């Protein structure tokens, strides 16, 4: 019987014939002794190999705790399970539902100019005075029209650069234009300026009040670490960032600014100091990120100077320190772990753009470059700076929103980014918590799918997910902290 005919058999054909019937699942090794088994809706159970074999051979005894656990988490069903299939279908649908409300994040590169000369900058900087690297008002207006063509009920417009505050007039224009259009559309509209804060002034802060504008800045750790890589020809980039953070909090409120850190080889032995710097600056959240293989980072060979194993060591030590801070009374969240934990435990998963299947390309976030070109993601734009235009979806002067969103370029990229059909991923227990990173694999392997046995993205995902699951299983106090982040 072929698969289609199988699908349309009567439901009674799927009833358990023996004591129980298996439901679709994937398993992977957790460590030398244990396996983790997951299903399409993100439930998981950890079990030892003999138990896994017994489950698959239909030898588990009803009435045992493991049997009950596997049954309640939809890994098996028996004659007493009335709604297992319906429940699974419903849960699957809830997790997939966000795809229909596509493109919540719209990024505007309002200028490519920047006053910093950072060695790992992902954007190819241009000199400050070259105003031909600014986005035109006509392109900005057209991009705002695109924003309101996406069906997402929540819209975030993020201003990027270069240093976006070098073209604040255009930011002001876009905010006012978007707010005016939104009176008709009624979306939940917010703005974020991703800035190094050197150009922050009272005029900017005054405008931000009352327009739901938030800031995101870079803070790599203590002053010497931050300034080592973020070279500001006159002055200290660290000073500008921490002073700016204070001013924003005073003017716009304590939650109006978030900070992001980038890991460089110099960060690797200093993760505790980095976390402590975030505490010192009053943050309750940190995202321990790895270095991206784009832009100047690749040209300066930075990305090759440390291996994913070094980063995982850095991450594990940092997470331990953060958990200990929580246990000693300072609430602090590690954002990468929080995203993965939400994918494991929250009914609707997590919409983090970089960990989706299909990938978030175009459908979670889209980027309008300073010259009017449209890219499927920020990293896709960075790759274009290096001469690879795989992720260019069109141009604001030439294409309509519909043409961009239904273009072969985008549809083919999305098809190729569904983990459910990719070698290794399709059998991987971590798949429901993982995502596709076509830009990373194009940059590192020359192919959007990538061979996962050679992929440092895959290695990183597996290592972090194994670590988190082991903490949840083996360390009760860590589990309490991790659960509070969901």
């Amino acid at each position, binding site marked *: 019987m072929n*698969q289609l005919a*199988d699908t349309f*058999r009567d*439901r009674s054909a799927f009833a358990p014939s023996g004591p129980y019937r*298996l439901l679709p699942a994937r*398993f992977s*090794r957790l460590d030398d002794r244990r396996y983790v088994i997951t299903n399409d809706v993100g439930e998981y159970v950890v079990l030892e190999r003999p138990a896994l074999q017994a489950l698959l051979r239909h030898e588990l005894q009803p009435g045992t705790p493991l049997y009950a656990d596997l049954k309640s988490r939809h890994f098996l069903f028996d004659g007493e399970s009335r709604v297992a299939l319906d429940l699974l*279908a419903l849960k699957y649908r809830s997790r997939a539902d966000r795809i229909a409300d596509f493109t919540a994040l719209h990024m505007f590169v309002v200028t490519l100019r920047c006053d910093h000369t950072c060695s790992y900058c992902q954007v190819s900087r241009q000199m400050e005075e070259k105003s031909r690297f600014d986005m035109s008002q006509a392109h900005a207006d057209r991009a705002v029209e695109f924003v309101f063509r996406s069906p997402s009920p929540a819209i975030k417009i993020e201003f990027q650069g270069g240093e976006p505050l070098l073209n604040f007039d255009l930011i002001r224009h876009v905010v006012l234009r978007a707010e005016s259009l939104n009176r008709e559309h009624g979306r939940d509209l917010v703005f974020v300026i991703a800035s190094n804060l050197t150009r922050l002034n009272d005029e900017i802060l005054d405008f931000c009040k009352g327009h739901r504008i938030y800031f995101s800045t870079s803070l790599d750790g203590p002053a010497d670490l931050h300034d080592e890589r973020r070279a500001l020809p006159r002055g200290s980039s660290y000073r500008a960032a921490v002073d700016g953070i204070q001013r924003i909090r005073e003017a716009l409120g304590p939650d109006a600014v978030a900070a992001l850190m980038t890991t460089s080889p110099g960060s690797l032995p200093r993760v505790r100091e980095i976390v402590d710097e975030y505490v010192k600056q009053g943050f309750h959240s940190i995202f321990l990120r790895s270095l991206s293989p784009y832009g100047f980072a690749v040209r300066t060979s930075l990305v090759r100077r440390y291996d994913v194993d070094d980063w995982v060591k850095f991450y594990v030590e940092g997470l331990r320190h953060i958990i200990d801070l929580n246990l000693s009374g300072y609430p602090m969240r590690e954002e990468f772990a929080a995203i993965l934990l939400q994918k494991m435990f929250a009914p609707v998963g997590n919409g983090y753009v970089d960990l989706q299947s299909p990938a978030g390309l175009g459908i979670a976030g889209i980027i309008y470059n300073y010259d009017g070109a449209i890219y499927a993601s920020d990293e896709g734009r960075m790759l274009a700076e290096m001469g690879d235009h795989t992720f260019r979806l069109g141009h604001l002067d030439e294409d309509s929103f519909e043409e961009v969103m239904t273009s072969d370029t985008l549809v083919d990229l999305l098809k190729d980014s569904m983990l459910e059909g990719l070698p290794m991923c399709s*059998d991987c227990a971590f798949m429901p918590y993982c995502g596709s990173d076509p830009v990373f694999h194009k940059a590192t392997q020359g192919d959007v799918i990538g061979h996962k046995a050679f992929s440092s993205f895959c290695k990183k995902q597996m290592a972090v997910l194994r670590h988190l699951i082991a903490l949840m299983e083996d360390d009760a106090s860590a589990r309490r902290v991790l659960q509070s982040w969901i």
Partner: protein
Amino acid sequence: MTADDRFDTRIDVQTYRPAAIKKAAYRVAERCTVRLEPSDSDEPILRFTFPPRTSDTAAAEAVRVFYQELLDEELRAQLHEETDALRSLILAHAFSRTDLLQR
């Protein structure tokens, strides 16, 4: 074992299905290349080729990991056989009442 050495062994394709052998080979591709070669007997040859400068210990570990993966792949194949039609049913059910076309 030295630099670019090979290691040959025979494999029982009654016990291990070729699809499982191929998937296990894919998983260990960073450590070694595994090829399934025909032989005069019923049991084809499994040929492991290691990258230059692979130590004896690393080569032995690569072969061990391959067999470990192979056992897992066999179990996965059993699971797939039993549940693939159910997965199609659940997905069909999940999307049977969507309003995607009306959006």
